[in-house]
């Protein structure tokens, strides 16, 4: 299984277990695995609009993710896992 396939498999698994949209699950996995820890980078890495990354982050905020800062100019949200989010990664994701 390629790295990309493995990533998508984890996204699917979290989407199913947490009842999330695929984009939301992808954001959680990205933050959890350090692929992208802000909405703008996530949008660039996965080729989706920043607006849609922001929407996913808003849906997850306070649940699996929290925003550590938001740029007043670009709206870029820097994200980290909450305890509930970290639990999906064995509680160690933030240190990654």
């Amino acid at each position, binding site marked *: 299984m390629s790295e990309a396939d493995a990533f998508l498999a984890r996204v699917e698994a979290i989407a199913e277990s947490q009842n999330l949209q695929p984009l939301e699950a*992808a954001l959680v996995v990205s933050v959890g695995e350090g692929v992208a820890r802000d909405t703008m980078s996530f949008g660039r890495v996965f080729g989706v*609009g*920043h*607006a849609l990354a922001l929407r996913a982050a808003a849906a997850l905020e306070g649940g699996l993710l929290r925003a550590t800062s938001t740029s*007043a100019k670009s*709206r870029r949200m820097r994200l980290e896992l909450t305890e509930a989010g970290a639990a999906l990664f064995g509680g160690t994701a933030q240190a990654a």
Partner: protein
Amino acid sequence: MLKANQPDGFDCPGCAWGDPEHGSSFEFCENGVKAVAWESTERRATPAFFARHTVSELRGWSDYDLENVGRLTHPMRYDAATDRYVAVDWADAFAEIGAELRKLNSPNEAEFYTSGRASNEAAFLYQLFARSFGTNNFPDCSNMCHEASGVGLIASIGIGKGTVLLEDFHHADAIFVIGQNPATNHPRMLGDLRKASMRGARVAVLNPIRERGLEKFADPQDKIEMLRGGATSIATHYFQPKLGGDMAAIRGVAKIVFARDDLEKAAGRPSLLDEEFIARHTHGIETWRAEVIATPWGHIEDQSGLTYDEIETLADVYLGAERVIATWAMGVTQHKHSVATVREIANLLFLRGHVGREGAGLCPVRGHSNVQGDRTVGINENAPGWFLDNLDKEFGIASPRTPGHNVLHAIHAMVEGRSKAFIGLGGNFARATPDTPVVEAALRACRLTVQIATKPNLGHMAVGEVAYLLPCLGRTEIERNSKGKVQIVTVEDSMSMVHGSGGINKPASPHLKSEVAIIAGMAAEAVGSQVIDWAAMADDNDLIRDRLSRVIPGFEDYNVRVRKPRGFWLRNSATEREWRTPSGRAEFSAAPLPVEVEHQSARKTEGQFVLQTFRSHDQYNTTVYGLDDRYRGVYGERRVVFINPQDIAAMGAEPNARVDVLGSSEDGRARVAEDFRIVAYDIPRGCVAGYYPELNAVVPFNKAGEGSDTPLSKSTLVTFRQRSGA
């Protein structure tokens, strides 16, 4: 997988330019980012804020400072005893608003104003509310901007909308950008102009002011270009007609085209005109041709402010292109003769068949993101009979057939005491309209004012006897209905594409309601729910779209099609060369050039100029994001007036001197905008410019475009008074 499963798109709440990558456009545009950031601010205008400040005090704040307080969090009612807004329950607000509306002597005493920000769903429900209440009074922000385009295009091509799609810009050989500054007002359009310019298309700009952002453009998406500080030339040809001179310039081009065509035919060569198109699809060319030939060059040059050589260059660009697009905006539409100018532009394109084929067409570029959609779904003081018939049939109501009020009619009615209630669905009526003090006084004289808004603005401080300030969700905010289902709204861009848009941020306050819910709440109290189930529609935008689709042709399968990428295109009859005019053909207009326009009459009086108002770069309509206008070199201030250096010298003034701007007082009203700094600028002699809303105070509300009733915001006669000590 991620792309295939993206949820509904997001439509930038900024401008109405088309969107090739729906769902992501806002970050590609400086203004889009500003618009989203403006709405997503962490600042809040809470009841505690209003408890600290009286309305009288807030009336003295600047537009920028007041909106910068932040998002409204609670429904507020004005308390005259304390001169403050105080928090109120939604139910109480709706009940009193309904009761006040019912107490009016006639439904026609109420004005239902719409901002171009309102979604299709909100606008459709709003017009249904007003019509079931019994009035067609729909003053609308489009009355102040592109009304002349609608009126002119309906007369010329049978539909009041542009005929081009975004893709047409990829095929055009020549693009005429007339009376428009996309660098500040439609930045995403610059990207399309830049691409056109880079592939060799000619971009001919007619703008009285040398706009640096329109001459050159550094694409935010081209990181290498940005890093190098480079920029691509946008305009291949840049001409500076005098204010109100566009019609004369276009007439000059047509005069040269006719003359060259005569020479070609006399020499036995093919015509330069598209004779087949003209013969098969148009009516009235001979009358217009005679009018053009009879117009003297002296008149054309004097009125346009361009030389024969400059106009000949424009004609060369026109005749050298197989496919021509003409775009325009407020620089064309806010004059007395705007309808005639729009029609003159259409005339020119008809000559070589540039309407109804790929890469060519007419493109009025709209301002606010849904100003075109609002008109489509019924915000129209004189809606066509078929629309009212369909509406009545669908909802079981009897819509009034008497035409209602546009913006100027509404101002007159309020000034004269004929209208006693004003409901504003967004916007900033008092600051967007001419003669600000007059309009503010008219609002204060109303029995009822209701403002639906996201942030406080100066217009909200012009309170009626009973006044409400009702906070709504912004387009950037996620809306859920009573069952937790996420709602989307829809908008129509300048190219007649209808998009869906869902929010991307959490709401600014738990007390906010959607515009749809607020309208439904007022309507239920004002007209009752026996005939129309307002609450059901308020809870499900799909239901509103279903019903709208049965009223307006072109919206079939609305809920399905709007959820497809980029949405769907509303058919435009003229693009298929179907002309819904009385003759069944595209109509040449044979209007004569005005005997004189304002810059010509201004010079008869020493010290008189013609003023255009426009936006700064840190501004969107009346919303002021910041105090800079970087393309024009103005920082940290807004009270400036741009004047030609030779005119400054002729006035006996110096650059940076401070002046008061005096408007016409021939009707007995003193019009003064105080304390502006003179900025020397590349603008034709006799013409001056400055920002609205500050300068709206000198724009008279009782002068308007012929056939459009559009305020003359680009052709206001002014003089200057030097301030003592300046």
